[in-house]
């Protein structure tokens, strides 16, 4: 199983601050997804990145896939309390032949204080 390390594990900031969370691995991934999970609910997909070096923007969120497709980052500009949640990265990797598996990182728990 390929491992995805997320950092930081916990992050507490004030409204209006910027932040970056990281998702790192020593393995190559075919694609990488970011999910956000709120208490009592299941994760919801934010974005999928496929190409090395790819950058995608979703309003105040910017996602980047590393050139070597081993890492990714999520940057939030001017964080708001509504951004509070658990952010999970998940990577697809080739487990042999045409089989792919999805591995999740352990998540970054973000709290944005008003």
């Amino acid at each position, binding site marked *: *199983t390929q491992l995805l390390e997320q950092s930081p594990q916990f992050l507490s900031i004030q409204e209006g601050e910027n932040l970056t969370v990281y998702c790192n691995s020593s393995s190559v991934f*075919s*694609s990488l*997804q970011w*999910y956000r999970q709120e208490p*009592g*609910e*299941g*994760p*919801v*997909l934010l974005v*999928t990145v*496929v190409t090395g070096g790819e950058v995608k923007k979703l309003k105040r969120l910017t996602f980047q896939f590393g050139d070597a497709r081993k890492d990714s980052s999520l940057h939030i500009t001017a964080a708001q309390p509504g951004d509070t949640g658990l952010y*999970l990265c*998940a990577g*697809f990797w080739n487990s042999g032949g045409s089989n*792919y*598996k*999805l591995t*999740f*990182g*352990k*998540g970054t728990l973000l709290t944005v204080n008003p």
Partner: protein
Amino acid sequence: DAGITQSPRHKVTETGTPVTLRCHQTENHRYMYWYRQDPGHGLRLIHYSYGVKDTDKGEVSDGYSVSRSKTEDFLLTLESATSSQTSVYFCAISEFGDPLDNSPLHFGNGTRLTVT
């Protein structure tokens, strides 16, 4: 929201008893998954299904079995519940299983299971 319903939402059971969790989807998606989420471990795949009566093991399948007799229903059974199976269980569905299609997972809202 994707039409995924998990039942029950909460359950408390005793060690040694069998437990069945149900996942029902209205999306007619081929792929269905069971995950467990635990502090310090994140989401881990228990079993998945790629069609009716087609299932396979995930990374933490010991002590669990699954069945899929209809496209819309995927059942997870704990044969004899243990305290280590106390967790939040999530069902997920996807239209395609090939990551090259960038198929997202759609998750249900989870079942919180406590084994005493």
